[in-house]
């Protein structure tokens, strides 16, 4: 009796699977705040691909790397997960992520020729692509045009070199009103590394050449802005959202922050504000900007890498919607939005994105970044001079990246 029943069961399953392919369910971990990008994309994708279901579990930014580490070390990783882009290399270096290079090369939807260089380099480790950036965000110079006019500056000509920044910042500073000319974030977290590297890179430095003359000049430049009181000493504790709030309040006339602030500024800023490219050391010096954003990755243990990649292809095909609907630049340079929101700002950031350089990549990124953070804070508080602090940082970093 039991055997008969089992036999029947086997036959009936075989019969149904012969008719329709058993639907595949992808386990997905998504960081989806504040925009519900993955969830929206998944709904659209499921409608087009009824045989693939996405089971999405939401994770938050603070836990994303911890959760991933725990999952891969206990073999419970999902089919698709998201990582902050500087963390790709550390996870990939442990050989737990699937190399997507061949799939990208073979894809009819994804064309590597059109990638912005920054995001894809950041997702590459040892020549293989382990992350699929959902897009990129980068830094620009936001300025208060009303304060420019009041200070006798031409808002059509924002400062584009370090000297111009110092000069404009001095004019825009009003100690009586506690109004500062310039602001950046030097807080003791990843955010200060993110903000500082473009200055060093424009002067010829980088994370692995952090004690070069250029990097030293960059840090001395930051230090001088604070010493001259054209930037508030509070930059040591202001994170980027705080910086944005100070800009909105009209307390800081120029700040460096990311394109993610555009929606908030568009809603809350009560004055004429504009965006310009990040300043460079001198006219003609190489442009540089930071690069942020999350990337998708497929753990090696996934049983459905093809379906997972198909979902990534779908996301890629929607790239031209990214700017208007989600507020970042796509991986695909050619995917320009039809009628971009904040068109002037879009033009600046689309241009800036070409110069956006990643952090690392290095499997030891958190420690590399920490060494740079320590140097920044030590110099701005005059614990040491820039050369000594950056030599120390370089020593630490050399030991890490060998």
């Amino acid at each position, binding site marked *: 009796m039991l055997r008969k029943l089992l036999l029947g069961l086997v036959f009936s399953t075989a019969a149904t699977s012969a008719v329709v392919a058993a639907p595949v369910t992808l386990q997905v971990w998504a960081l989806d705040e504040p925009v519900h990008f993955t969830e929206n994309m998944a709904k659209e994708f499921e409608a087009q691909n009824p045989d693939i279901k996405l089971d999405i579990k939401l994770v938050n930014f603070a836990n994303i790397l*911890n959760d991933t580490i*725990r999952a891969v*070390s206990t073999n419970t990783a999902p089919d698709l997960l998201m990582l902050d882009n500087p963390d790709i290399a550390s996870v990939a270096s442990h050989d737990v992520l699937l190399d997507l290079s061949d799939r990208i090369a073979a894809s009819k939807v994804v064309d590597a020729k059109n990638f912005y260089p920054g995001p894809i380099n950041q997702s590459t480790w040892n020549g293989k692509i382990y992350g699929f950036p959902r897009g990129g965000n980068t830094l620009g110079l936001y300025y208060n045009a009303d304060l420019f006019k009041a200070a006798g500056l031409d808002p059509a000509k924002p400062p584009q070199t370090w000297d111009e920044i110092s000069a404009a910042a001095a004019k825009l500073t009003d100690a009586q009103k*506690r109004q500062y000319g310039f602001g950046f974030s030097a807080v003791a977290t990843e955010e200060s590394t993110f903000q500082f590297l473009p200055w060093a890179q424009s002067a010829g430095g980088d994370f692995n050449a952090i004690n070069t003359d250029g990097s030293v000049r960059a840090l001395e430049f930051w230090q001088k802005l604070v010493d001259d009181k054209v930037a508030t000493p509070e930059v040591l*504790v202001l994170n980027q959202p705080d910086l944005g709030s100070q800009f909105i309040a009209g307390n800081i006339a120029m700040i460096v922050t990311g394109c993610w602030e555009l929606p908030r500024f568009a809603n809350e800023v009560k004055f004429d504000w504009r965006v310009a490219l990040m300043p460079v050391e001198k006219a003609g010096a190489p442009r540089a900007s930071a690069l942020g954003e999350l990337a998708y990755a497929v753990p090696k243990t996934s049983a459905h890498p093809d379906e997972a990649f198909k979902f990534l292809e779908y996301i890629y095909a929607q790239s031209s919607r990214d700017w208007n609907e989600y507020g970042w630049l796509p991986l695909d340079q050619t995917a320009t939005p039809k009628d971009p929101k904040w068109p002037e700002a879009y033009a600046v950031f689309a241009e800036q994105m070409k110069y956006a350089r990643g952090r690392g990549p290095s499997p030891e990124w958190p420690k590399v970044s*920490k060494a740079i953070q320590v140097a920044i804070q030590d110099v*701005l508080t005059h614990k040491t001079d820039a050369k000594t602090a950056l030599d120390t940082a370089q020593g630490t970093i050399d030991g890490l990246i060998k």
Partner: protein
Amino acid sequence: MFQSGFVKLLRDGKGFEGTLIAAAVLYLVVFAAFPLVYTVVMSFQEVDMFTLGTLVRPFAGLENYTDLFHRPEFTPIVWNTVIFVTLSIAFQLVIGFGLALFFQQDFPGSTYVRGLFLAGWILPALVVGAVWRWIFAGDFGVLNYALQSLGLIDGQIYWLSNPAYALYSVIIANIWLGVPFNMILLSVGLAGIPGDVYEAAEMDGANAFQRFLTITLPMMGPTLGAVIALGVIFTLQQFDLVAALTQGGPANASNVAQYWSWQMSFQTYEISGGATVATMMIALVIVVAVIYVRSVQREHTF
């Protein structure tokens, strides 16, 4: 048959007691002893983010400890921690004791106002941190405004971004947060002192100050011991305020051991380093816990 026997065993005096003890012991083993031992073990191993899932890891001997002692930030952070704990507890205790004595005087509404003081203690430390961040803000903070209006200072004091002030700003916020708890525990202690002792002393001509010195203080001894011990433990746990106010900065000026341990474990993934700091803190807390247990025992015997 078996069932009723089992139930009987449970209900029966010895079985019942055994079950209760077993439940408590099981809880302690799983949620206290295991993580504690695990942390200590990790401090003697090489642990990075991808060896978290396994227990078998390379033995590092005392390397984690010597590495820690040789870091340039070690000495400043230890000192910061000592200052943080000492000042926090000293002021929490003095202010808390003062308030407890004050509310011990039976004036109308004293119990209600005392209850209101607890509001601060109910707030999550992260919220308290966010509020104090606004108060301490250098350019537009309320504290600077108040001090300037009173004519006490001329320029701004950068409470959070000046390395000379940052640690003390965190301490001030922590004192504010800890006072209500101290006050309540000490109020309970004060309420336990029999009133007739005071009456007798008063009849013998002892003034208020003498009564405090010869009755209140000695009889509060065990309570004070317990409050101080708990204070040390709570202060060494105070992570949220540091995270919300300064993140240990600027340049480690306000970094304390508990925050440093977290930074190593979860920011730079030097998990053995974080475990090593935690282990040293465990050793300290055990000493304090012994003092606490002893003072509680004394409390029961007088």
